[in-house]
């Protein structure tokens, strides 16, 4: 791993970047915070990788199979809907 490059001049430490990662990914940092955040990423492959990992985690979660509607529940609910329509 290379020695950290000029981290002191670039506002956030890696530890702070990790804590702010959610706000960055969600786009809720202020313009100024965002600039400092990206400045850090320009100099730090570790944090860049961490952000990618958070994004990959969200992407993988989207691949997790969802629960399918059980057939008896579908039939019951459809019946309830029919009863309501006819009432």
């Amino acid at each position, binding site marked *: 791993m290379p020695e950290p490059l000029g981290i002191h001049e670039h506002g956030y430490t890696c530890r702070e970047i990790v804590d702010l*990662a959610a706000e960055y990914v969600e786009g809720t940092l202020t313009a100024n915070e965002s600039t400092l955040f990206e400045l850090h990423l320009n100099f730090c492959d570790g944090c860049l990788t961490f952000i990618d990992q958070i994004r990959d985690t969200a992407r993988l979660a989207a691949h997790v199979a969802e629960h399918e509607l059980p057939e008896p529940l*579908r039939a019951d609910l459809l019946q309830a809907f029919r009863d309501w329509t006819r009432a």
Partner: protein
Amino acid sequence: MTGADTEARVAGDDSALVARLRDGDERAFEEVVRSFYPSMLAVARGYTRTHAVADEVVQEAWVGVIKGLNRFEGRSSLRTWVLQIVANIARTRAVREARSVPFSTFDLDADQGEPAVEPERFRGPDDPYPGHWRSYPTDWRTLPEQRLVSTETLELVKHAIEELPESQKIVITLRDVVGCSAVEVCDALGVTAENQRVLLHRARARVRARLERHLDA
């Protein structure tokens, strides 16, 4: 597309859908039942002790939705409104079962104190570069895609989500598994944007840590 356009589009889609439901369109009803089921189940399971009770909550919620369909005013998306009904019924059940309810103040405070990454991963105050990584995380994008999106990895993600504290589990399931927006989750569960984000962050951080142990092995 701007946020306002998206909202108008969603509301537009919903009003046509709601009109079909009010007309007794069974196909529309089945479509909605099927597509809302995973998010409804996630909310119900978050508040209840057993899967059987969660199933009852989902069923009860649908009865409430059907009865209330004519009162739906379209101030939120249909799904948000349905999830609010699920959350209300599930909370009532949780209180009756004397179960602690997720999203209480205590629950959130406990979450806030948890670091996203273990502090030992960073250099200490005496290091010339305090707060910097001791060693970088591994770049998963150098892994073959088949390894990253393998059945084994997805099973691990699923288990990691199941083991999360309830409020984190509900939020990550709704946001990342089901694909709800942040606004939908806040409205459905009655949590602030800040709390929603903290819970999502903690949840993703824990799942990421599990993935890291698995993929680095």
